[in-house]
């Protein structure tokens, strides 16, 4: 006879779980009681949101399913932002929440919350376990749906009495989904229409999204893009899918994308979309998005098709299958000569990666850091101006080399996510870039970093504002800086020291000389090469802005630049 908690943990092990993140509490205590000897390493964060973001970091860095554990009530509600974050960014995540005793459910018992109900619209699948016997199937099914198709979050809510109860356990089970009669089947002939559209195209482009990376078909994608040799750009989550030095690569597209990428996306007449959902940050005004384009959309999730614009050719399926099929189809096909278009789109007038940005010393600071990183490093950005600067400037060829909260835009993501990433990539430099606003949203995780002695390199770009909101206030609200002033920030260096983490401060003067002085260069080298956690606070000009910028509701061609 085994306790429900022991069965639960054995089932997690059977799913390959060896690392979980969580925070104990009343209803989940039986599970914690059984942890020792289970073969599963538990990382105690200092807040449940830290746990779920750390689990996301682990999942995003490895492709494995992240697991976060919390107790009932407030423990569970503190997971919700992370669950929504994982849904938006297609992160495989299993959240386990304790629930009050089954007999008390519905009575507004102490720390009772309808976790199942409140996460319904944020999860791919969820289960309120109704008996100890359901535990093995619930776990098997949860992991199946977290990984299947477009990955995403699932929730298992388990009443505490089922974790304490005992039963004979025959071993973990394997969930097999029932077939659906209406499952969409990819058309075997998609290539004929595709070739026809390619043959007619005069200005084709390729847009790479997260789906391309999630499919694991990066070598196949790169081979295809080399063959097509058409102007190519990526969403913030597609960064790293294309080798940045590729002559046809134009960088990031969208609200803060490069001029070259946005212009090519605006002007093209055939848009090949690989695993991107075309959200508003990518399209700008949807009614003026790629006005002359026909769209071929490669996508695993049919729900993402036609959300913004109808596509001429939807290709539904795993890109690991459809990209090689595409490549095979164009072998021997006589495609048009796009040299002239490529020369325009990738030409010297456009192809540079926002040289205007270099006039900003914060951007130069990030460049100095990024240029010192080895290829296997991971940069994690929080949410705000620094995130966009980092996305613009970090040019990694590693598909999992740049991690950020893109869809939900969750401030406070980076620090706990870096914990999950560093645990998964102990031999890599993990550089966590935050703003002064977001850093304070999960600042308590410095204790986790210290406890585990994780050599994370923490950077705070400190402009003493909620910078991105302030930028919008400057540009669109007549400089009415309502409630974005953080000039009374604490001294982050002293805070880090209180957590026994080394910390230093750099100001913009250190970036005035180009290249930087030997002294500054040495300081950056020491920071990155330290075997300890380190914090570097960079004092940023309060009114520095991110450019280019496509104002909300404008077309991609209507970018603003620094001098406008």
């Amino acid at each position, binding site marked *: 006879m085994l306790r429900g908690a022991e069965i639960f943990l054995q089932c997690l092990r059977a799913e390959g779980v060896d690392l979980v993140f969580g925070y104990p509490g009343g209803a989940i205590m039986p599970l914690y009681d059984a942890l020792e000897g289970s073969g599963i390493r538990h990382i105690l964060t200092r807040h449940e949101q830290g746990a779920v973001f750390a689990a996301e970091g682990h999942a995003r860095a490895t492709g494995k399913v992240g697991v976060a554990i919390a107790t009932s009530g407030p423990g569970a509600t503190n997971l919700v932002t992370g669950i929504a974050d994982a849904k938006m960014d297609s992160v495989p995540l299993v959240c386990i929440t304790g629930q009050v005793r089954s007999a008390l459910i519905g009575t507004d018992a102490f720390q009772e919350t309808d976790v*199942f*109900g409140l996460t*319904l*619209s944020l999860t*791919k*699948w*969820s*289960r*309120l376990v109704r008996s100890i016997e359901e535990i093995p199937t619930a776990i098997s099914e949860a992991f199946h*749906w977290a990984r299947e198709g477009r990955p995403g979050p699932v929730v298992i809510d388990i009443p505490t009495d089922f974790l304490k109860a005992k039963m004979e356990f025959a071993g973990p089970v394997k969930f097999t989904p*029932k077939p*659906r*009669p*209406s499952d*969409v089947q990819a058309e075997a002939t998609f290539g004929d229409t595709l070739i026809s559209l390619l043959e007619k195209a005069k200005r084709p482009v390729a847009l790479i999204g997260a789906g391309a990376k999630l499919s694991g078909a990066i070598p196949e994608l790169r081979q295809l893009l080399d063959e097509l040799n058409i102007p190519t750009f990526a969403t913030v989550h597609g960064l790293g899918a294309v080798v940045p030095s590729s002559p046809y690569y134009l960088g990031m597209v969208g609200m803060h994308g490069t001029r070259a990428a946005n212009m090519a996306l605006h002007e093209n007449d055939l848009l090949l979309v690989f695993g991107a959902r075309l959200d508003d940050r990518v399209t700008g005004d949807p009614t003026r998005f790629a006005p002359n384009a026909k769209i071929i959309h490669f996508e695993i*999730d*049919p*729900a*993402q*098709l*036609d*959300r913004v614009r109808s596509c001429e050719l939807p290709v539904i399926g795993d890109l690991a299958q459809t990209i090689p099929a595409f490549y095979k189809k164009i072998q021997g096909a006589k495609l048009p000569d796009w040299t002239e278009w490529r020369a325009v789109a990738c030409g010297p007038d456009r192809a540079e990666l926002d040289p205007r940005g270099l006039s900003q010393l914060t951007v130069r600071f990030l460049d100095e850091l990024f240029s010192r990183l080895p290829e296997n490093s991971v940069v994690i950005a929080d949410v705000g101006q620094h995130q966009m600067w980092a996305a613009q400037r970090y040019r990694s060829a590693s598909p999992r080399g740049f991690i950020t909260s893109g869809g939900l835009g969750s401030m406070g993501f980076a620090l706990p996510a870096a914990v999950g990433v560093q645990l998964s990539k102990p031999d890599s430099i993990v550089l966590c870039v935050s703003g002064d606003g977001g850093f304070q949203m999960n600042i308590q995780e410095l204790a986790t970093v210290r406890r585990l002695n994780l050599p994370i390199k923490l950077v705070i770009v400190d402009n003493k504002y909620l910078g991105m909101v302030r930028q919008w206030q400057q540009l669109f609200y007549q400089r009415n800086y309502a409630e974005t002033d953080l000039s009374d920030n604490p001294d982050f260096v002293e805070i880090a020291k209180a957590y026994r983490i080394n910390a230093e401060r750099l100001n913009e003067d250190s970036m005035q000389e180009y290249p930087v002085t030997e002294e500054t260069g040495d300081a950056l080298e020491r920071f990155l090469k330290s075997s300890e956690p380190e914090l570097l606070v960079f004092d940023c000009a309060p009114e520095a802005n991110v450019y280019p910028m496509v104002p909300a509701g404008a077309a991609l061609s209507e970018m603003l630049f620094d001098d406008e």
Partner: protein
Amino acid sequence: MHEFHIHYRNTQGTLMRILTAVSRRGLEIPYVLANSSGHGHRADLLLEVNAKQIGQLCRDWHAIVDVTDVRMSVPTPDMLEAAAGFAGPHPPASAGANGKSANAAMA
């Protein structure tokens, strides 16, 4: 008005996921009937939606794990009648002792 038939396995939360796909778009649901149908269950919904919303909804419903099929048809007269009732006036509320309605007191 468009009529939708969503076939699903009656697992935990599936009907609610079907309905939240509608409610998250701020759409009203003038008619809904959920019942067992053959080996599974079926939810019939009557919705005022445009062509774009139809596509989005059908795809969102289909993406739900235990939805097995999504179909559209022309609304039956019975459904339209029921839906028309939805838009009509509510029954008059009972007056309370202090002059406020019982419903207001409950709220």
